Structures are given as structure tokens and as C-alpha cells.
């Protein structure tokens, strides 16, 4: 009887541990995800720090796609903001490693396609004259894929608008189109329900900033 009791207790102990870990994961993620849309973290250093934290969580968990996803997102932002262009490619390479791991765990996903599109755009920044021809259309194609995978994903339209806004007009950019995209994004944000409180839901604040610039 006591043996049984002991076994039960032991099982309870294990469950408790697992539960504690999962809680630790959720609370750590929640805390970091909350920092994503804040202006104070949207700097090279801030993004680097967040990416580092997400990478630590990702490498400790190994089976969760979200920490890899966020690590990739923060890295690519770090790459966009890095002033030393000779380092940009290496930072992007790190982002690629993370998003590939996320994709291996999650499978094809609209949010992942969005990051892949951002990565292609970041590659252009290193040398727009020679890389624009290759990565511009690649980035656009990835957004089409993202849209097919989830037409309700507002981030697809944030990125489409952003791309239209920053592409020179001769290469198909347009401020009016950017605004159209941002408007769609805002509508989609209003109805978008993230899968959980730590699932991707960034971009609404950012798009409101951008929309002011294309008015």
C-alpha cells in the first residue's frame, strides 16, 4: 500500500516538475514576447539581446518552434539596423539557422514565410544595386506564399506595405500601394486571433507608425 502511495507520489512529483518547466517556458516567453513591440527594444542592441534570450530558450527547449521563430525575427531586425554592413550577412545567416529550425519543428507556416521574406529583404540592404534583382522578387514571392498559407495573417500586409514603401518607384514601389496594404493590415489585426498568448502577434504598433509616413 505504501509502495503504491510512494509510486503515486513519485509520479505526482514528475508531473509537477514537467508542469513547472512548461510554466517556466510560458512565463519566460510571455515576458520576452511582451518586449517585442516596445520602442525601447527596437534598437540593434535591444534586438540582439532579445534574440540571445530567445536562442537560449530555444536551445534549452529544443522542441518548441516559437523561440526559434522569435530568435530569427529579432536577428533579422538586428541585421536591418546594423550599421556595419560587412557584418550584416553573418547576422542574417544566424537568423536563417533559427528560422530553419523553426520550420523543421512547425512545418510550412505563414508566419515563418513572413520571416523568410524579411530575411530576403535584409540581404538586399547589403548591396542594393547588385542584390535587388535577386532578392527583391524572392522576398515578394515569399509573401505570396505566406498569404496563401494564411490569408488572414496581418503581418503579410505589414511587410507588403513596407516593401512597397521602401522600394524605389522604378522597381515597382509606390506610396499609395503601401498605404492600401497598411489599411488591410490594420483591418486584419482587428480580427486576428493569435493561437496562444505567446504566438506571433507583432506589428500592429509598427504599422501605425508607418502609416503616418505614407499619409
Amino acid at each position: 500500500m505504501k509502495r503504491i502511495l510512494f509510486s503515486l507520489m513519485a509520479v505526482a512529483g514528475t508531473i509537477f516538475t514537467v508542469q513547472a518547466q512548461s510554466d517556466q517556458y510560458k512565463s519566460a516567453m510571455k515576458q520576452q514576447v511582451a518586449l517585442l513591440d516596445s520602442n525601447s527594444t527596437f534598437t540593434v542592441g535591444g534586438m540582439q539581446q532579445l534574440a540571445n534570450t530567445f536562442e537560449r530558450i530555444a536551445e534549452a527547449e529544443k522542441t518548441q518552434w516559437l523561440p526559434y521563430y522569435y530568435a530569427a525575427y529579432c536577428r533579422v531586425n538586428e541585421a536591418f539596423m546594423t550599421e556595419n554592413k560587412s557584418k550584416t550577412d553573418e547576422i542574417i545567416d544566424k537568423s536563417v539557422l533559427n528560422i530553419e529550425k523553426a520550420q523543421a519543428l512547425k512545418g510550412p507556416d505563414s508566419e515563418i514565410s513572413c520571416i523568410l521574406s524579411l530575411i530576403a529583404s535584409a540581404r538586399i540592404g547589403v548591396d542594393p544595386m547588385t542584390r535587388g534583382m535577386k532578392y527583391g522578387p524572392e522576398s515578394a514571392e515569399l509573401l505570396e506564399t505566406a498569404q496563401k498559407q494564411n490569408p488572414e495573417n496581418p503581418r503579410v500586409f505589414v511587410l507588403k506595405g513596407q516593401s512597397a514603401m521602401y522600394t524605389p518607384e522604378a522597381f515597382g514601389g509606390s506610396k499609395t500601394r503601401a498605404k492600401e496594404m497598411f489599411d488591410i493590415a490594420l483591418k486584419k489585426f482587428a480580427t486576428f486571433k493569435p493561437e496562444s498568448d505567446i504566438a506571433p502577434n507583432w506589428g500592429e504598433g509598427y504599422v501605425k507608425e508607418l502609416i503616418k509616413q505614407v499619409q
Partner: protein
Amino acid sequence: MLKPFAICFLILLPIFLRAQSVTVKGKITDAKKRPLAGVNIAIKGSYDGTTSAKDGSFSFTTSATGERIITASLTGFQTLEIKAELGALQDFNLVLKETVNELKMVTISAGSFEASDEKKNTMLKPLDIVTTAGANGDIVSALKTLPGAQQVGEKEGLFVRGGTGTETQTFIDGMLVRNPFSTGMPDFAARGRFSPFLFKGTTFSSGGYSSLYGQGLSSALILESTDLPERSSYSLGVMTIGGSVGVDKLSNDKKKAYGFEVDYANLSPYFKLVKQKQEPVVAPQSLNFSTNYRLKTSKTGMLKLFVTGSWNKFGFLGESLEYPGEKEEFRVENKYIYTNVSWKESLGNGWRIQLGSSFSTNRDKIYMDTINKSPQPSRVNARQDFSQFRAVLSKNLGKFSMLRVGSEFQYADERSALNNMHADYVDSYSATFAEADIYFTPRFVGRFGTRFEYTSVLKAANIAPRASLAYKLDAKSQVAFAYGEFYQKPEQQYLRFFRDLNYQRATHYIASYQRVTEFFTFRGEVFYKEYHDLLKTVPSFNNNGTGYAKGAELFWRDRKSIKNVDYWVSYSYLDTKRDYLNYPYEVQPDFAANHTASLVYKHYIPSVQLNIGATYTFATGRPYYNPNRPRSEFMQDRTRTLNTLGLNVNYLTTIGKGFTVFVLSITNVLGNDQEYGFRYSSDGLRRNMVGPMAPRFFFVGMFMSFGIDRRQETIDRQ
């Protein structure tokens, strides 16, 4: 028997474990003791960790205890893992080593200018060649703005460091190209046959090039054909002198692609508007086509098939130099086909194989007549068939070093007939080569190679050793040295008549310094070249010619100082003399100028999407032969200094769904006299200046490209 306390303990164990905490702190630097910020420091397998501060310091608490692994990672550095016993307060002094990537590694650089999108650290991008003003999309004309090349306008080819145009060979995917230039008229340079858009990489070597290539005494132009396109596209070009259409189709699985391009040009309407030095009697027309098929045979394998052909004809009527008041007519019709098949595959274990085969045939029909004078017009019928096979195996040695071995075989069938006089020959040429790039350290590399050649027409063999060294002084700059022996058969036009000859030989010594930063590039090079066994035609055909060339060259490129401006300046000083062909003794040859300089300027105006480019070139006078001077003053006359300014304007826009570029280009905008040399009549009483057909050439064109990309459609459907 467990006490309730024990049970309680078991349940609470995880909490107790969490409750203990240790502070991990320390400082992190690079190998040179400079603090590193942004390093991700973590306890492996836990969330615990932090990012290092600006001064490289870090500190965090962890509940982990016992022997754990601490990791430190930062972009651009090798990740560090150390085992540590976590317990008492600990101080860690961590040192990260930089990763070695392409940017930090030294590269073989002496004598070569590379334009590539794929490789970093190159001086140029393929786009730079296309956008160089005054070059009109001709690879060789664009490369003439680089140090080492002469401004020779009356003959085709790259005249490099005291070498003739025929001393520069063109290679496509490793294979030598026979007739890389279209057939022109004497004293007027013809254009290259290959569009710069066909290549993803272009390397112009002004000396000391790799053992993989041979038969160029001075220089090699190494072209690498493009792989699969990024996406399908269509193109359309409308020009003042003709038009072009092209298709490049990529399969849905992105594993194969095919494409073709056709262009037609007819210069007669243009010649009606812009008067030429000579009167066109046959409307200058050209028709070019090219088609290609590229197949990814596996993850690492690539098969490429490329066929290009061209047909062109023209004819001019000019004043006769021999018979004053009479006219001289020159007409030519040329047909050319070039095919190239290549296959690359990785064989595992660091081995790679590259097989290639190419075939070309060139036919010229030339008609020359001094109307009313010579007994009968001269008709030249010439045909060159050239086939070759090539195999190269390469093997990675360790992390960066590489070994390449290979062999090639060429078969040339050369025929030519002047009226009924035939002069034909065939030649089998074979070569075997081996070369190793050995990285002693990532900063110090040596390339050692040798090449063995045999050619049946001369019944002669040669062994050509070559070596290069490069050492990186710091992250941005490096020094390099090169030495090599280079052999070349005498030109076909002499071999046709006399074959009891030997190879001509040149020995190169090069020292160079370069500094490449994100926006600035500087290169300085000095060289010494010795010519041996050059071909002599007077008093008889022999290999007793000699010569030398030495000089210094500078290159400076700046993409930052002026907003939206990219410019480069090159300067070459050349001191060369040679005794060859009919020269009586060693003199500075007629294709060599002592000082040559170019300024290539590209200005982008984003507000109106305008690209403005200008190329200014300068060269001091070149020697020319004046028969009225005594033998002791052979080649003592000099032409006038050459100054020319080329201009182009590109306007980028979109028409419908096509990305469109409008191009306007003018060569020699200022109309400076282009004096390339002089031709004398046989009695020495009259002479003609050698120069371009017209002072300027105008070109207006519109090029559209349509990518199959469904962006717009998808948006319209919403």
C-alpha cells in the same frame, strides 16, 4: 519505508532545486583583449544566461549547479563552450576567437581583377561592366578602363602590359575561345561576340594567371556562364540600330531552365544620318542568336548547354592610299557558331569534377579591290573549326586548401585561301595541369602550379611552372606576389605559311598591394615581364625575337565620398620594348603608350531615377612607323595624346508590367581627335591617319524586361 517527510521532500524537490542560485559573472574579450558586447552567454540546457555589456562584462544568476557547460556565442566568432563547476561565486574571463570566413581570408590577388556577385572581396560587380559609359555593353571595352590595359582602338582585343591583343586569350567555363571577336576591317576594332549578360563572373588577369589556363603570353579573360536564373523573364529591346527579344524560362521545380535571345542590327539608316569616314557600300547588318539549357542534375550537379551564332556583313568604299584619286573597296561576310557544354558534380569526400566540351566554326568571306587598278580583286575565304574537351578534378585539402588537376585537348582545323592560293593546317594541342592552393594559415596562401603542353603543329612541348603568394596584413589589406612562365604558339596567320617554329615565351613577376574596405578600394601593382622567342618574320621566319615590359599601376575606387556617386580611377605606367616581326631591333611597339589613365564615373539620381555615367580616358602618344626615316629612327614618331570622354544616361521606369530602361550613349562626346597611328603608301609619299569611322557614335535604346511574377494579379483579386 519512507517517512512522510521524505515523500514531502520528493514532491518539493523541484522547488528546492530552483531555490538554490549561483551568480555567474565575468568579462569577455576577443583575442586582442578588446571587450566584446552582445555575446550570448548561457548555461547549456537552461534558460539562464545573459548578453554581455559594452565593456564585455556579464553577470547573471542561475539555479543550475554541479558541472555544467557554459556557452558564449557572438556573430563572427567561434562559439566557446567551457565546462565549469557551478557552486561558489565565480569569475570567468572568456576569450572568443574570430571565425574565418571568406571576408577575412586572404585571396590570390596579384594581377587579377574579378567581377562577381557570388564572391565577396571582388573589385567589381558584373553590373559594373554593363554600366561603364563608353563601352556600349562590350566586355573588352569596359575592361580597358582597368589598369594594365592599353587604349588601342584600331585592333580588337586587350593589349595588356606591353603585350599584343592576341596575347590575351578568352576562356568560357575554362575553355579557350577561338574567334572571340567578330570579323572587322583592318584598322578598325571589332566588338566582342559575347554579351556581358551571359556571365555571372568575369576575371581579367593582367598577368601571373593560374595553370588552369594557357596559350596567352600576357593575359587571360576568364568568363563564367550563368547558372539557373532566379525566375522566368522575357525581354524586349528597341534600338536606333535594331532590336532584340529574349526569353529565359525557369521550370516550376526550379531545376531546369532554357532561354533564347535574338537580336538584329542594321546600321545603314544610322550611317545616312551620321557621316562616316568611308562610304558604306554594303549595309552593315548583323543577326545574333543564342540559346541555352541548364539543368540541375542533382543537389550539387549542374549541366549547361550553350549555343550562340552570328551572321554579319558590311562593306566600305574608301580613298586608296596607293593610287591617289582611286577608290578601294572592302567587303566582308562572317558566319560564326559557338557551342559549349559543361557539367559539374560533386563526387563526395571533397572531390569535384568539371567536364566540358566546346566547338566553334568561323567563316569569313572577304573581298578587297582597288577599283580600276589591281588586275583582279582579292578574295579571301577563311574557315576555322575548333573543338576541345576538358576535364578538371578538384579536391579540398583540409579546411581551405584545394588541389586541382586536369587535362584538355584542342583540335584546330585552319583553312584559308587568297584567290586560288590555299594555306591550311591542322593542329592537335593537349595540356595537362596541376595546381594547389595551400593555406599555410587563413592569412597566408600560396598557389603552386604547373602546366605541360604539346602541340602537333610545332611538334614541341613545354612545361610552365607558376606560383603566387598572398599575405593578409590586416582585416582590409594584403600583399601578393606572382611568378609564372607562359607559352603561346605563334599566331595562326603565320603558322599558315611557316611551321618550323617554336613557342613564344613570357616570364611574369608581379608584386601587388591592395586595401579593400566597404566603400573604398585601393590597389597598387608593379610588374616585370620578359619576352623570349618572339616570332620574327624578317629576314626570315624564326623565334629570335626578344622584349621586356615593366611598369607600375594604380587603381582607386570610391563609392562613398560623394553621395550617390561611384567612381574609379586607374593609371598605368608602361616601359616596354620588343624586337619582333619585322622590327630591326628592340623598340617601343606601336600598340604601347607610356602613360594611360581612366576615370569611370557613375552617378545615380534617385529622385528622377536617372543613372548618369561618364568615362574619361587618356593615353600618351604611341609610336608609329614612318618609312621616310632611317633605320636608326625606326618607330620614333609619336601620335598625338589620346583624350576621349564617353557618356551614357539611363532612365529607369516601369511601363505596364515591364521594368524599362531608356539608354542614351555617346562615345567621344567632345569630338577629340582619335589618332591611333598612320599608314603610309609604299613610296612613303602619302599617309592616312588611322582612327575611328566617325568621331562619335550615338546610341539610343529602350530595354524592357518582364518577370513572370504574379504580385500584381494577386493584389487585384482582393
